[in-house]
């Protein structure tokens, strides 16, 4: 079965790409790896007249250190990020999350910029990036801007991108010194599925076991990826006892606004948030993951 026909534009620089998306003849869509867009075209959910491919814009695929931060070009694939030396050495939570995206062949093609622009609630990398307070770099017809990832997801499959704007990079600050991180992906059907619920956390404990810094973010828990702010408040400044972990998990479940879909009901999702936030926090405390 063929895709609904479209014309393909293959710009070789960012400015050419910006020109190509803002030209007004018919509907244009940006395509990076195509792992999300091609199935949508196949299923008839979108019928673009024109695709603007970012594959030949060279700077977009770079992964590099920039001072203390990691700069991921938007076209860096999950497989590239997984294999990056810099990521392996300094951003283990991010590495753990991208390794859980779908299957090896999807990770070869799927990109970090595409994943974020798709703005799906059940993204694997998004919660890890939220824990790192990452920033999304965006280029548009009127210049560039930087959007904190906490404000990048505007709604269900809706990113804070204006027409004609392109995600160019993601800037990822390092984890706090001494922080422990982990990502738990709970799937209800098969291991390579999207997460029913994904929980990422970065936690820093002082020598007495008191929590000095905590970031918890959730996928599949609301119409967009979210930070679990109430859960963080429950843990921050406290010794991470079983009771505190349980209270944090309760707070995360209470704050969540899960949706029902084929993977599970909203009620089941809320229950799984309760379970997996608690398990991740105690596992990070005990050093068992």
């Amino acid at each position, binding site marked *: 079965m063929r895709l609904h026909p479209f014309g393909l534009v293959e710009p070789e620089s960012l400015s050419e790409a910006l020109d190509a998306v803002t030209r007004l003849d018919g509907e244009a869509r940006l395509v990076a790896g195509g792992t999300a867009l091609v199935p949508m075209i196949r299923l008839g959910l979108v019928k673009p007249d024109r*695709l603007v491919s970012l594959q030949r814009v060279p700077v977009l695929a770079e992964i590099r250190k920039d001072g203390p931060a990691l700069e991921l070009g938007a076209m860096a694939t999950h497989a590239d990020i997984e294999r990056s030396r810099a990521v392996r050495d300094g951003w283990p939570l991010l590495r753990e999350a991208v390794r859980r995206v779908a299957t090896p062949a999807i990770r070869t093609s799927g990109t970090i910029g595409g994943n974020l622009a798709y703005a799906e609630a059940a993204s694997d990398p998004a919660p890890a990036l939220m824990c790192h307070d990452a920033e999304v770099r965006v280029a548009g017809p009127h210049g560039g801007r930087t959007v904190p990832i906490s404000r990048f997801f505007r709604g269900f499959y809706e990113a804070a991108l204006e027409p004609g704007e392109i995600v160019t990079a993601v800037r990822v600050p390092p984890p706090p010194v001494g922080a422990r991180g982990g990502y738990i992906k709970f799937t209800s059907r098969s291991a390579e599925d999207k997460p029913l619920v994904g929980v990422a956390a970065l936690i820093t404990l002082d020598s007495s076991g008191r929590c000095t810094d905590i970031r918890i973010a959730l996928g599949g828990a609301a119409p967009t990826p979210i930070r679990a702010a109430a859960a963080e408040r429950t843990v921050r400044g406290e010794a991470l006892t079983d009771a505190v972990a349980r209270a944090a998990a309760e707070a995360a479940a209470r704050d969540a606004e899960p949706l029902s879909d084929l993977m599970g009901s909203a009620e089941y999702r809320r229950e799984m948030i309760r379970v997996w936030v608690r398990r991740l926090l105690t596992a990070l405390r005990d050093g068992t993951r």
Partner: protein
Amino acid sequence: MNLAFTLNGRPCATQAPDHWTVLDLLRDGLSLMGTKYGCGEGVCGTCTVLADGRPIRACLVLAAHVRGRALVTVEGLESDERLDPLQTAFAERGAAQCGFCTPGIMLAAKALLLENPAPTEHEVREALSGNLCRCTGYTKIVEAVLAAAPGTR
């Protein structure tokens, strides 16, 4: 559009409509029928081929996006009329039943062995996590991949 890439070790220059995927190009443009059309959405894995040694879904990747890359399909696994060790292991161990998933599974396994010549059983299962087989239950497939691994043979 014009396309030039390497296909199973040989240069290939051809043309394709803008909206073709790699799978359209292989099957309809180049008459290589070893790569199968399964779900068309990247889920089942039977259209898996290699691009620069890594597995891709031929049904999801636009043909334009393999320009300049080295593609390997199931037709390119054998060399000089000798089967790849994976093909031999699959045949000897009966690791195929209906065979529809087999080309994709062999290419996914090939990608693993190129990067990791001595995988554990868990690593094999992880590498094949995107390839559905509805006949076998996977046991013989996993055994065949382990048997073909150059680091453990």
